[in-house]
């Protein structure tokens, strides 16, 4: 009996290439149009509805999460990409700092789509974009900058028991380059995180990288694998002055990612 043999034909290498170019473009078009509508019309409505600032923030974050989930669903079901998540149920705990690498344009969307209620440190350009500025401000997201204000705001969110997503690489990374983590995340972690949890994101083959136009998609379909790693113990870093400890923790982040993703 050879019932165990997998008889599904191997996926064709080109795997509906032109259809994927079209659905990728359509995905971004829908994201752009609906995103702007949400940012310009729906967010103000959510802000007018009664409730305290904290309630409104929760509301806006929920809306963003649902919108990102819809986008992720569209990209997945239309076949533009495929993605898998492992261990997401461990994300979104109180005071949890979630760090992730950032190899592609939409990994941040996939992550926010699956973490309930989390804050996020987002690039400053979002505050200069008319369709995004209201959403990111109302969601209480923190603009990224190597300043005391960013560090203090990020640390305050964690201290208040929220969970927070940070991308220590700062910007999308070019594959095969030496990994560089900004120490801001390590510094925020040591100030007030209760838990630090790494998320390893792997895009195979690499897609939607920095400096590559969206329509230059890889020939085989890109698969996004998001894997939640084991929590990083902060105890060994606690009894040193902050500048020393944050360097050591940052090195620990880099080692952890190198081990988990097999790159350096």
């Amino acid at each position, binding site marked *: 009996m050879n019932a165990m043999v997998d008889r599904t034909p191997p996926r064709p290498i080109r795997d509906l290439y032109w259809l994927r170019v079209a659905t990728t473009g359509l995905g971004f078009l829908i994201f752009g149009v609906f995103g702007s509508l949400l940012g310009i019309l729906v967010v103000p409505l959510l802000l007018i509805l009664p409730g305290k600032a904290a309630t409104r923030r929760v509301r806006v974050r929920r809306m963003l999460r649902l919108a990102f989930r819809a986008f992720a669903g569209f990209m997945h079901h239309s076949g533009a990409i495929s993605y898998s998540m492992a261990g997401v149920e461990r994300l979104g705990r109180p005071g949890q700092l979630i760090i992730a690498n950032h190899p592609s344009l939409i990994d941040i969307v996939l992550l926010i789509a699956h973490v309930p209620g989390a804050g996020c440190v987002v690039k400053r350009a979002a505050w200069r974009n008319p369709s995004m500025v209201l959403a990111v401000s109302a969601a209480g997201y923190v603009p990224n900058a*190597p300043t005391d204000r960013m560090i203090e705001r990020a640390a305050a969110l964690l201290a208040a028991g929220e969970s927070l997503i940070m991308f220590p690489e700062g910007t999308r990374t070019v594959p095969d380059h030496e990994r560089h983590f900004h120490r801001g995340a390590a510094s925020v972690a040591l100030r007030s995180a209760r838990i630090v949890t790494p998320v390893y994101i792997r895009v195979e083959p690499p897609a939607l990288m920095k400096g590559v136009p969206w329509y230059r998609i890889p020939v085989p379909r890109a698969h996004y694998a998001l894997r939640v790693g084991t929590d990083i113990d902060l105890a060994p870093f606690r009894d040193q002055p902050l500048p020393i400890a944050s360097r050591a923790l940052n090195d620990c982040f880099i080692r952890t990612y190198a081990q988990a993703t097999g790159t350096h």
Partner: protein
Amino acid sequence: MHDKDTVFKELRATLVELFELDPARITPETHLYDDLQIDSIDAIDLMERLHRQTGRKVATERFRSVRTVSDLVDTVHQLVNQA
């Protein structure tokens, strides 16, 4: 009133403790970033420390122009001596 020499000595002690540096490496001409690898994130930790020591809050903006230990001494000297 603190004179600049006292400020320098106190700052050196702080830098030694916070960054685990050899005191001999810290002279007024020492460049914070090039020589000691003290970057913008460290500057935040340093400012918090100075805030606790002097009771005065230092704005990040005031540190923009700080390059050397002597710049830092001048900034802190101004800070502690202002009414």
